[in-house]
């Protein structure tokens, strides 16, 4: 089921804060059968968007289509969606089986069939043995699976997940994100999930939608967005450790950081912001980017050099280089910049300079 958001806008009227635009003219098409991550910092409007797709919030403007059907004014129960909440929202007084069967009760599914379907779903998410437990007796990961089973049991057209991993500890998070990916593949259901964790979004999404301040920043496959950020925000938000930023300028088609020429770009002379991914550096004998190493962190195969930012006083930048050559703090080195890891942004708008 393809989901199409057209000029979707949500304005909240808050007594204290007045009008706030949570989502601003959002245009997205979510392809059928894919797993899409809605990504952004908290307060960027991603959860509001999810709730509008679910039908729990009414858009101020714009339309929502499931396939060709305009569902904008259809109540949530008639949209055919399954929704998993951040805190799972399991009914504490019901067993796992009763929780999973609860949506079917409203659809007047016969009891025997309901039991069968609940078991089927429980098996799919791997909690088939726990049907008689109460939510309190389950681990966070198991509760999460019950919530997914409950969302899927009525065979929704769309599965929506709100921060599905944020209540799990680090180890469970890894396992569960693989699990979500597997369940999504097996069912082939169009899935939208919301997260503020870029690593989480990058690792399992077929496509990510990056939002800030209610506005869509970039849409695409995770690696594409990482490799070709449209603007400074996207470049900064994706990647750990984050991208290094320098105040640079363009002179005669050369990208300059101070006196060092680190690349070529055919554009007018101007002040720019230069972004270089930490892995975009390499050690070299011949470069005009000469720096002194402040600190060295060696973790496994990577050596991270922490170096004073030549253009921003008091700030440092990170360069990840091969561990082969031993480098000590205080060493003077020369760095080369890989053109594919180098991005130039407009100083005022933050847009990528082509």
């Amino acid at each position, binding site marked *: 089921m393809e989901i199409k958001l057209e000029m979707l806008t949500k304005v909240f009227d808050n007594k204290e804060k007045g009008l706030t635009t949570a989502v601003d003219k959002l245009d997205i098409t979510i392809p059928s059968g894919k797993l899409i991550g809605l990504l952004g910092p908290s307060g960027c409007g991603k959860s509001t968007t999810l*709730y509008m797709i679910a*039908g*729990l*919030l*009414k858009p101020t403007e714009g339309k929502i289509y499931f396939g060709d059907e305009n569902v904008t004014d259809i*109540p*949530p129960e008639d949209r055919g969606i399954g929704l998993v909440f951040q805190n799972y929202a399991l009914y504490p007084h019901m067993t796992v089986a009763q929780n999973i069967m609860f949506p079917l009760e409203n659809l007047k599914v016969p009891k025997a069939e309901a039991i069968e379907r609940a078991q089927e779903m429980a098996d799919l998410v791997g909690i088939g043995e726990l049907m008689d437990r109460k939510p309190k007796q389950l681990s966070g990961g198991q509760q999460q699976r019950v919530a997914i089973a409950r969302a899927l049991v009525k065979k929704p057209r769309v599965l929506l997940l709100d921060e599905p991993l944020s209540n799990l500890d680090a180890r469970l998070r890894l396992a569960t994100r693989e699990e979500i990916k597997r369940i999504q593949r097996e069912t082939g259901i169009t899935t939208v999930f919301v997260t503020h964790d870029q690593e989480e979004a990058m690792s399992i999404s077929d496509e990510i939608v990056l939002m800030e301040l209610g506005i869509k920043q970039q849409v695409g496959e995770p690696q594409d967005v990482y490799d070709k950020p449209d603007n400074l925000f996207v470049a900064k938000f994706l990647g750990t450790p984050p991208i290094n930023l320098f105040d640079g300028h363009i002179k005669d088609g050369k990208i300059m950081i101070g006196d060092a020429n680190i690349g070529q770009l055919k554009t007018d002379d101007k002040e720019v912001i230069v972004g270089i991914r930490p892995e975009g550096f390499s050690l070299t004998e011949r470069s005009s980017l000469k720096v002194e190493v402040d600190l060295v962190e060696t973790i496994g195969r990577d050596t991270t050099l922490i170096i004073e930012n030549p253009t921003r006083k008091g700030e440092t930048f990170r360069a990840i280089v091969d561990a082969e050559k031993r480098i000590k703090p205080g060493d003077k080195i020369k760095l080369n910049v890989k053109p594919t890891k180098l991005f130039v942004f407009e100083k005022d708008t933050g847009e990528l300079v082509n």
Partner: protein
Amino acid sequence: MLEEKHNIKAWLYLAPAMILLLVFTFYPIFNAFFLVFLRDFNFLAGSFDGFTLTENFVYILNKPDFKKALLNTLMIVFVSVPVSVILALLISAWLNSIKKLQGFFQTIFFLPYVTNAIAIGMAFAFLFHRNYGLINTIFNWIGLPSINWVGLGAGYWSSMFALLVFIIWSGLAFKIMVFLSGLQSIDKQYYDAAKVDSTPRSRIFTKITVPLLSPMIAYITITSIIGAFKEYTAVIGMFGVRLGPAGNDGALVTIVALVYEAISRSGSDGAYSEAAAASIILFAITLVFTLINMQVSKKRVHF
């Protein structure tokens, strides 16, 4: 959807409670303020002779019974509240310091809470019986003469004393309960820290326990004061509708007792306005304490 207002639906849910509250709570409040301004209102006849601003208040304030009731009520407030609060505080601190038998004592101390005030009031009256009561028996053991506490012709102070003992006994359970749960929620770290500094126990109690419990102490004190201003059932339980020892009828009358006494004279002129005036005076007194309570409990209760 979520943010939409559902006025009709909400009022369907509210209707049963609201109708009852309107009839039995809100209308009576307004009506009390209406009745108090009627001159010679007769409920059974349904008649009255115009309006008056102060006559009913003046009448009740000048009534000898009212002065008696006010004095009795103040006596109950200013003796029973401090005594029971301090006792409850000590008892709960003792309870909190033991492990074995804590549950047993707690259960015993809670018993007065689940007791019918009339039934136990009668038992108290008999406990204070001049000839057959346990109190005088104990008095005789230790060489004191028997006292006519609550019997025929008993004096004011002895019967007031017996009443106060009963009221304090009845009020302990709830206070101990609240204080104990307060004590149990105090972080043990404070006590550990005090121990490290080798603080004496009495100092720990006055410098750590009481201050940390102070919101609860304030809450209990003020609600107890309000409750004590409304005392009536205890008097009925011990002395019956005569509100005092036989031969000294009405000696232990309270403000609330006056309200009910007036209501029971439904056929007489001005009785209901008198009741309204008494209840409004009571309201004014309790309002002062309630406002104090609200200031205090703002920290405690989250609406």
